[in-house]
């Protein structure tokens, strides 16, 4: 019923809009008939073109195909004349007039008259389309077509892209807008998406309120049959009358309010749906406005390839195809490095020396082709193709076996395609020499990473002596992606679905320890299990573990994440839901934060960090984590040790503070000995780390003062200093310091070891 209602409202809106547009069409067509000067004509054509185009869109949204088709035909004609800048022949003007008239008739037609109007419209559509086709075949257009042909042949794959008229219309009128302004627009459009989600939440809440009122009304309704009896009973107690009145007016009020709320909710739903649709479209259109052709990137490639080739005594030609195809600016920026890497590889490993090529009866000059095409509306395909030696599969397999990535038995069973995918494994390089350009075995892993981060994919095909083709698929615009929302120690994080193998509950009894690591067995495969809070360096919130304890739930929610063939299970506090989100970068100040790839704004307005799974898995590999004890819940939280850092240089102070905090110490700072001593008197610390040369009170004096003060005498003192003479060292020890670290040999583990020993 709601949908019908909406349809009705939409139709009403469409009628109003269509009338306005038809009026505008009439007016402009009449002007055109007067055969005005070229400038005015151009402006008018533009007006009618836009009106026809907009009306077509509107008709499509209410599914009136007759109007849509007719407008399409009109638009086609206007577009053609817009390009040709010629006068519309009178006969055509008449037909266009008639077309506009028939649309008006359609809007006014009674159900009985409709078939007739429809027939008329179909006729006109046919007539106009035919006129357009004839116009197309005029010699001028012929010439134009010829010009286009070579390009068309090059990009045979690109067929069926944009309707011809659109691209021409776009060419005829362009405006230069700074990318900064476009980015600004894009941000605003993206913000509308959050707003849409917020509105949906409000709507949900309104429905709930309506629901609870309805429940209340139902209760009161239920009493209604008993009302006469109640009234009789109350009659005997005169004073209860007022209560009865209150009840009855309350009942009425609720009924009224409920109706009001229902109406509002309905209205809200409709507006919201329209607004949502518009917001989505606006974002889509804005994204399109932010597209750039590949040529902006390609321009720098041929010279670069030539340079590398010359340096290696090779001869290489570069051919670019489809460089006019457009893609999101951000994607274009980010594809640059992977692409350069592939091209370097192609010159370095692919293309052979001229002599070798001659022996193989190939032309001396190698050829690298970059072919862009758009097989689908939303994806762009980029091929990097060389006619070189091809990939030596045997060398890759040997290398993989040597590195233990592959067992010799498995190596024999591998299919060609699987062997190629080994190239993306970091550590594999078939280049015999580690040249400056490639062969470090890391490159292809990075290329794949970069492309996958953009939501793309890469595959390889190769034939011995015939060459190698890397095929990259990329989205045209940076789309929203889906991720799961988890909570850890009171923080929310989003994990992109692409990295999530599965979400599950882990039974405490299934957690085993092996080689000082906790593991679980999933599908007969052992997986390392770590606490996400530990990996991220978050303090466990006591409230959370308390909750866990209370529920006595022996299972822990966890997600299994995968990157680069490594899987790890991460324990989280809660897996909340799956969401569609837009990732944003963290701003210009936070260039790179370990484990965080970006952030997104939820419907509630809350900003949620998006986790970088690559970093997480690397973090787990790099640091042996404290094992998740099978029963972590009963573990008493260790008291956090506090350290006072006394240092007058900001840099050194920040450094020390960061190192110590990273290791879980609570750190306070003081800017000189005096400040330090005052802080120590105010509050006890587990240790003091102090510089020696400082204004007001130096480190030696501070140490002495600490040792002399009965309440502080036991506090361990570590002196960190530039003074590296035996005399100073002795003086430090004399003053009562527990340790003396010279900055020039300073490394963090040294300091941390000393402190761990002392506190």
């Amino acid at each position, binding site marked *: 019923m709601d949908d019908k209602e909406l349809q009705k409202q939409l139709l009403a809106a469409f009628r109003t809009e269509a009338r306005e547009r038809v009026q505008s069409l009439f007016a402009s067509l009449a002007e055109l008939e007067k055969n005005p000067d070229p400038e005015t004509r151009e402006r008018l054509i533009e007006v009618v073109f836009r009106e026809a185009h907009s009306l077509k869109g509107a008709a499509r949204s209410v599914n009136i195909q007759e109007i849509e088709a007719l407008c399409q035909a009109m638009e086609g004609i206007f577009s053609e004349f817009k390009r040709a800048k010629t006068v519309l022949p009178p006969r055509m003007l008449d037909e266009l007039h008639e077309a506009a008239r028939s649309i008006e008739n359609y809007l006014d037609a009674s159900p009985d008259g409709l078939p007739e109007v429809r027939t008329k419209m179909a006729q006109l559509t046919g007539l106009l389309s035919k006129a357009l086709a004839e116009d197309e075949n005029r010699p001028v257009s012929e010439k134009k077509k010829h010009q286009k042909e070579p390009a068309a042949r090059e990009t045979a794959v690109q067929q069926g892209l944009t309707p011809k008229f659109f691209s021409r219309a776009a060419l005829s009128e362009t405006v230069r807008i700074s990318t900064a302004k476009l980015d600004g627009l894009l941000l605003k459009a993206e913000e509308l998406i959050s707003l849409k989600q917020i509105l949906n939440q409000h709507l949900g809440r309104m429905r709930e309120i309506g629901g609870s009122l309805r429940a209340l009304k139902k209760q009161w309704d239920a009493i209604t049959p008993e009302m006469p009896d109640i009234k009789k009973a109350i009659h005997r107690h005169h004073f209860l009358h007022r209560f009865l009145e209150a009840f009855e007016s309350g009942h009425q009020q609720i009924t009224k309010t409920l109706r009001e709320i229902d109406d509002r909710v309905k209205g809200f739903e409709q507006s919201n749906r329209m607004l949502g649709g518009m917001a989505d479209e606006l974002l889509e259109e804005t994204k399109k406005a932010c597209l750039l052709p590949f040529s902006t990137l390609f321009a720098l490639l041929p010279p670069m390839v030539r340079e590398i080739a010359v340096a290696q005594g090779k001869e290489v030609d570069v051919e670019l195809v489809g460089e006019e195809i457009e893609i999101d600016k951000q994607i274009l920026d980010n594809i640059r490095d992977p692409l350069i890497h592939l091209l370097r590889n192609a010159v370095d490993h692919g293309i052979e020396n001229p002599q070798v090529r001659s022996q193989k009866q190939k032309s001396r000059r190698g050829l690298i082709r970059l072919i862009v095409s758009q097989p689908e509306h939303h994806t762009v395909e980029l091929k990097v193709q060389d006619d070189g030696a091809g990939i030596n599969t045997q060398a890759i397999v040997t290398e993989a076996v040597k590195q233990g990535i592959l067992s010799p038995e498995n190596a024999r069973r591998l299919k060609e395609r699987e062997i190629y995918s080994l190239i993306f494994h970091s550590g594999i390089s078939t280049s015999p020499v580690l040249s400056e350009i490639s062969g470090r075995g890391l490159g292809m892993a990075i290329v794949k990473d970069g492309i996958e981060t953009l939501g793309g994919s890469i595959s390889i095909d190769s034939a011995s002596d015939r060459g190698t083709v890397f095929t990259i698929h990329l989205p045209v615009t940076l789309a929203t992606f889906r991720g799961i929302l988890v909570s850890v120690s009171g923080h929310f994080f989003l994990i992109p679905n692409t990295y999530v193998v599965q979400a599950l509950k882990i039974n405490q009894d299934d957690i085993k320890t092996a080689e000082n690591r906790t593991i679980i067995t999933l599908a007969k495969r052992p997986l390392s299990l770590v606490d996400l809070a530990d990996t991220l360096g978050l303090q466990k919130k006591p409230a959370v573990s308390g909750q866990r304890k209370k529920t006595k739930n022996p299972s822990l929610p966890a997600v299994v994440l995968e990157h680069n063939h490594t899987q790890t299970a991460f324990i989280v506090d809660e897996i909340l839901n799956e969401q569609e989100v837009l990732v944003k970068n963290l701003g210009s100040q936070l260039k790179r934060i370990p484990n965080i790839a970006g952030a997104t704004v939820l419907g509630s307005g809350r900003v949620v960090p998006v986790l970088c799974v690559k970093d997480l898995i*690397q973090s787990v590999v790099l640091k042996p984590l404290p094992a998740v004890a099978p029963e972590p819940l009963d573990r008493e939280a260790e008291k956090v040790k506090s350290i006072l850092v006394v240092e007058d240089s900001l840099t050194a102070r920040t450094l020390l503070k960061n190192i110590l905090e990273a290791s879980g110490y609570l750190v306070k700072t003081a800017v000189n000995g005096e400040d330090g001593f005052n802080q120590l008197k105010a509050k006890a610390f587990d240790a003091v780390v102090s510089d020696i040369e400082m204004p007001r009170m130096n480190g030696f004096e501070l140490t002495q003062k600490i040792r002399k003060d009965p309440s502080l005498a036991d506090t361990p003192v570590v002196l960190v200093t530039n003074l590296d003479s035996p005399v100073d060292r002795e003086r430090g020890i004399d003053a009562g310091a527990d340790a003396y670290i010279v900055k020039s040999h300073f490394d963090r583990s040294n300091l941390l070891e000393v402190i761990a020993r002392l506190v």
Partner: protein
Amino acid sequence: MTPYVPESKKTEEVLKARAQQLAKGGQKESPEQKRVRIVEFKMANESYGIELDHMRMIHPLNNLTDLPGIPAFIKGIINVRGKIVSIVDLKKFFDLAEQEPAGRPQVIILSSEGMEFGILADRIIGIKEVPEGEIQASLPTLTGIRAKYLKGITTQGTVILDAVKLLTDPKMCVELEVIEKK
């Protein structure tokens, strides 16, 4: 330490100040009395000012999200009209005494080519014009870490920060790799 001033009285003061400003001869600047426009704010009970040239906007501190693994002087990130902006706590950066912020903290967003962040203000006092002559080089008592980021101090004791120094300081830029922690 600032005495509590009722709202109406504050308004009165502002109006009075403006009236005096006008009485002095309006907006016209004599060449030797160039004026500097600053936004004045409170931080750790001290009065600070920062030139308007590099201020993008003032934004309430809503929906602050902490990030794991960021330096202590960064409070977290917020969403400002669809863009993520990181928030710097200058108290931490300057190593000032930590105080419970009074009232509703605001964010002053500074921005320049290639760098943007917000600084946390306990309270915004307002925009004001200070004659350049009234800004003197920093006091000897302010030699700490702050000295480096100071433009000067007004006769009323407002510490004027150097937005350019803050924005271009490499220490402000955070670029951390996944490191092995012991």
